């Protein structure tokens, strides 16, 4: 088998750099696997490990520092047949730690070769996440303050099913790299090496010292039994194939006549949990059943089941431009929280504005017509209040008619929810003028 190395672009590493050795070893691994160059993509990180893609006749993707695993994931999901090999240094592993953890948890079939030489070589020998505390480096005393990270232990506890820790001088490294690439899942190799340009200028490190240090650590030699599980991409495709096809959005035909001819604006003032936004949507759909155009602008806080929830609805025979409401036709006061948020509104209301006041909710004084509805007495619970208020509106033939609301409920809901909402609509009493 021919070499994958690009004769026109030989490695440019410092003399004695383990990276060069690994370059040739990776080439041997590719040759042994009987692959063609176009079946492989090398995704390289930043720093000296980021040069790897330029030495090989394969597809190549060289991106940002620490992010190589993210591009690799996109490539692999898009092209499952590709062998995706990521080269990253200890620096990239530090800055891209979140991606390493996620890749271990995800178990997409990528091979990560970490060329670990215990420092940032290219930028001047600063300390990395794997620098020993006693090393003399370009970061002064700072590396003495931090504890180095055991990449392999992290990878194992994060769920990587294939983890190998070794020195770049191992005799059978090519076979081991091949094993990692052939493994059907996320595989990590933490390959220790020497950085003669920076690290060993002031620190003693040789192959024997590395082997001795490795021997003291728990051995990790490939498959991690407790993490074996199906590969992500295959699982994704299997589960995606079971997802139901989603159709076009419902097209709502005009079939009814709205009770008023002009533009109508409704403000629902409620609180989170009252299904105000759903009620607003139903009011819009009811408008569509009368051939009207509609907008629904919502306002709520970041909290989920707490805080005000406000929906502003416009139903109009003409195109709607501005989606805010200056002078509503109807205000529905469902909850003190919503009313409080729009306190200043009530003073401005003209006397032809209808305010539906749910009893128990006090509203500021104003000129508007008040229609009081007691929902508690009718046994209507909080989550149904907004919907019940629409039924009142429909029965008063304001903005919508009962048949418009019924049609909207039939479009929006199904089964039990539809049945109970129709029943709700039926039994709501319209209350009285104040």
């Amino acid at each position, binding site marked *: 088998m021919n070499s994958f190395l690009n004769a026109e672009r030989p490695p440019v590493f410092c003399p004695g750099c383990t990276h060069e050795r690994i370059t040739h070893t990776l080439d041997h691994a590719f040759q042994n696997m009987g692959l063609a160059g*176009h079946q492989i993509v090398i995704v390289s990180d930043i720093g000296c490990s980021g040069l790897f893609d330029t030495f090989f006749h394969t*597809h190549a993707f060289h*991106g940002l520092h620490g992010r190589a695993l993210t*591009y690799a994931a*996109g490539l692999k999901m898009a092209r499952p047949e590709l062998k995706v090999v990521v080269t990253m240094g200890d620096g990239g592993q530090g800055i891209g730690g979140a991606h390493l953890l*996620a890749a271990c948890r995800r178990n997409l079939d990528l091979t990560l070769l970490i060329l670990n030489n215990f420092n940032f070589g290219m930028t001047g020998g600063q300390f990395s996440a794997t620098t020993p505390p006693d090393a003399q480096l370009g970061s002064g005393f700072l590396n003495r303050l931090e504890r180095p990270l055991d990449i392999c232990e992290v990878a194992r506890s994060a769920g990587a099913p294939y983890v190998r820790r070794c020195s770049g001088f191992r005799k059978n490294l090519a076979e081991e790299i091949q094993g990692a690439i052939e493994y059907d899942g996320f595989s990590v190799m933490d390959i220790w090496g020497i950085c003669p340009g920076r690290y060993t200028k002031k620190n003693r490190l040789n192959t024997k010292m590395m082997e001795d240090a490795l021997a003291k650590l728990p051995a990790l030699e490939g498959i991690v039994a407790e993490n074996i599980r199906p590969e992500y991409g295959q699982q*994704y495709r299997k589960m995606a194939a079971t997802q139901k096809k989603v159709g076009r*959005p419902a097209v709502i035909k005009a079939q009814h006549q709205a009770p008023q001819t002009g533009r109508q604006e409704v403000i629902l003032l409620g609180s989170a949990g009252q299904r105000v936004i759903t009620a607003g949507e139903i009011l819009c759909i009811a408008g569509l059943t009368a051939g009207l155009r509609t907008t629904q602008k919502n306002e709520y806080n970041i909290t989920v089941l707490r805080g005000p929830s406000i929906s502003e609805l416009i139903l109009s025979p003409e195109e709607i431009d*501005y989606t805010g409401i200056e002078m509503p036709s109807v205000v529905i006061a469902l909850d003190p929280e919503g009313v409080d948020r729009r306190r200043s509104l009530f003073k401005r209301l003209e006397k032809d504005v209808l305010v539906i006041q749910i009893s128990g909710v006090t509203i500021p004084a104003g000129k508007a017509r008040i229609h009081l509805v007691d929902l508690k007495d009718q046994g209507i619970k909080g989550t149904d209040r907004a919907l019940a208020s629409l039924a009142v509106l429909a029965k008063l033939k304001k903005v919508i008619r009962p048949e418009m609301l019924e049609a909207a409920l039939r479009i929006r809901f199904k089964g039990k929810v539809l049945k109970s909402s129709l029943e709700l609509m039926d039994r709501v009493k319209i209350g009285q003028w104040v």
Partner: protein
Amino acid sequence: MAYSLLEGNEAIARGAIAAGCRFYAGYPITPATTIYHTMLNLLPSVDGICLQGEDEIASIGFCLGASMAGMKVMTATSGPGISLYSENISFALGSEIPIVIVDVQRLGPSTGSATRGADGDINFLRWGNSGGMPVIVLAPVDVNDCFTLTIQAFNLAEKFRCPVFIASNKEIGMTRESIDLDGLNLPDLIKRTPAPSKPPFRPFQADTAQTVPGFLPIGDSVLVRQTSSTHGPDGYITTDADEIARSQERLKAKLLSAVDQLTFHETFKRDDADTLLISYGVTARAAKAVFNERDRQGKPVSLLVLKTLWPVPEPLIRQVAQSVKRIVVVEMNMGQYVREIKRILPEKQIDFLGQMDGRLIRPAQITEVIDSE
């Protein structure tokens, strides 16, 4: 006529699918999250891929990988996520990777207010990349635009091999609106141009100083190189200053020489108007209300609604502004795009109305500025 009810975010997702997008990755963030939800609903059943990244950086990284494998890709976020995308945006610009990036803007600065709208990222989208290369930013006004401009965004990303932003806003993205899906005027779909089949393939070789290199995907039989480093046509690092100059010049020229093809707008001109309103995004709707009202009152103004913000459609703006004395720029921020208008039209009186407090600018506020003279 028969309408559907969609929120802007859902229309963007559906527009993306219609444009042929089959890869989406995102990270949850209000007010953009429902784009992700919709893509997750729609993509798997059409053999598409939808992923949730571990963060925004991963999400856009997935997209860039998939785009280089030949897929049409999209991601969506809000201002805080754009910050995290920034370095990868620069990558996509400099290395010509097609991607559609939706920014459903919320009130900033920083974490700001997740559930309040603003158009505060307009300059950030333009200038938030290292190197300062031009970008394409489209701004939808309503749910129809969310659908159709998204298709245009994909077309432009494919055609010009670059990131294309959709500058939406909470007030468009999370507002539901009636839409006549069958009545939309949809553009034909464009796919990135393949490189000529004659070897050798040089991944960044363009025909002219203003054009876009032909594309081949990573994974096919011809070897492809992609790199974030300064590169020559062959995709290898270069230190040749002349080669670098040519490449930078081309990245700029490929968009700036094509402004006419990139310009989307709606112009409402009144011959007897001496004031021109310029606006974009959700604020353009208030401006439209004012335009209509003034017409009814017999005190007409003209209105230019920009749907392409960057590159600045300078010829269009000059032409529409020609006959008016005064321009009022209205935007939902503290004054960003108005700088461009002042730059282009130094001889005109330019007044500004801006507001960034989560509330929509009301038509009455615009009228007040018009009448303030």
